[in-house]
């Protein structure tokens, strides 16, 4: 762990970022003789204040201050419908600003030093070098509970086929997804240029193979790509801020955002008393479900569902049922159950 605080001395002579000395960004006390004295007034994350980087990177910081990685607005927007007006004010004050916002990424979180998650950080990514990207040490750290290990196969099952082909996060998620495009979004769902499979796979329904062509034509706009091509179980969290209870699961149901598309769902850990410890209740808890559409990052060309129509239409494997709903969950959960039917046989 201590190595994460070691600075590569050669950078001092070659990287213009060091032209102002350490204190240019980190402040502190240059005259201090001990660790404690030297660290008096230290700014641990200088780029929390975007103006630090704006001196040179004005264009990027101007869009980044509105980007979701910086504002964390998605976390607030995702839960706010559960609160009354008074409760929302309490949530903003006691939870969003204190907890959610503490997770926002500064410029340095991706380009210099990996963010601390659960109190653990790997420290400097490459001896304080200002790197362009290193997904395995940056994206993976914050998104390492679910998405990244699904993608690499470390969570079980096979790795995502795109990972096996050598693709990493930034091959689909563009730079503008990170730095923002200048627009203020409340949720990642609203981002205009977010990645979609059809950016590359743009000839669906024109395949030579009849079964593939038929499947893509029949399910287009009715089932998401993940619905068929997510290859294995992914992590679902059941009791956040209580007993840790995350376990694998594969859940197919209606996308709560449109109420009609069949897709992979993930249990999102907001239970009735999630914020009780902070004295915040959720009067409208049932306004939102506990399951949300999820872009499972374990895509394969062939899965149980692409091999056989029966996997869904007869066996109903993975489909959300009333019996499988989480206990004491939201009443909105039942609306996500998809009544899958056998394929009608025509003469």
């Amino acid at each position, binding site marked *: *762990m*201590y*190595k994460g*605080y*070691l*600075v*590569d*001395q050669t950078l*001092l*002579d*070659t*990287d*213009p970022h*060091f*032209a*102002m*000395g*350490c*204190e240019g960004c*980190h402040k*502190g006390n*240059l*005259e*201090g*003789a001990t*660790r404690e004295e*030297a660290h008096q007034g230290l700014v641990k994350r200088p780029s929390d204040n975007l103006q630090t980087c704006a001196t040179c990177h004005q264009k990027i910081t101007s869009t980044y201050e509105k980007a979701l990685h910086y504002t964390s607005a998605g976390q607030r927007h995702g839960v706010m419908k559960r609160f009354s007006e008074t409760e929302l004010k309490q949530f903003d004050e006691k939870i969003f600003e204190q907890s959610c916002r503490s*997770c926002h990424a500064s410029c340095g979180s991706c380009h210099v030093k990996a963010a*601390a*998650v*659960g*109190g*653990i*950080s790997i420290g400097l990514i490459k001896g304080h070098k200002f790197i362009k990207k290193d997904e395995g040490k940056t994206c993976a750290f*914050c*998104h*390492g*509970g*679910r*998405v990244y290990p699904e993608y690499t196969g470390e969570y079980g099952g096979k790795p995502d086929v795109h990972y096996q082909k050598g693709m990493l996060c930034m091959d689909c998620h563009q730079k503008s997804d990170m730095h923002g495009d200048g627009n203020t979004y409340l949720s990642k769902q609203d981002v205009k240029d977010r990645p979609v499979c059809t950016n590359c796979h743009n000839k669906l329904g024109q395949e030579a193979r009849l079964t593939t062509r038929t499947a893509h034509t029949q399910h287009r706009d009715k089932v998401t790509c993940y619905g068929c091509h997510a290859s294995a179980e992914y992590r679902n969290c059941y009791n*956040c*801020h209580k007993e840790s209870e995350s376990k694998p699961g594969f859940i197919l149901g209606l996308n709560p955002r449109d109420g009609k598309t069949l897709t992979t769902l993930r249990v999102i*850990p907001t239970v009735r008393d999630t914020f009780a410890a902070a004295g915040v209740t959720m009067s409208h808890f049932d306004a939102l479900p506990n399951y949300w559409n999820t872009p499972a990052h374990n895509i394969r060309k062939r899965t149980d569902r692409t091999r056989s129509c029966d996997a869904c239409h007869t066996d109903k494997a993975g489909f959300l049922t009333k019996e499988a709903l989480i206990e004491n969950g939201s009443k909105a959960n039942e609306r996500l159950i998809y009544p899958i039917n056998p394929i009608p046989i025509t003469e």
Partner: protein
Amino acid sequence: MKTKITVFLVLILFLASLSSSTVAVDKSNCMTCHTSDSAIKALYKPPVIDTHAGEG
């Protein structure tokens, strides 16, 4: 003559680009410890792990 001046200027610029002293060098106290493996190892304090923090 004009060609000679151009070649001379290009040579000067090339030599300047080879210089490693193009940025200010920080020789402050910070670097005394933060570039020394043994010093930073001795000073390092493991973080207190927040078991309530989530992961995404």
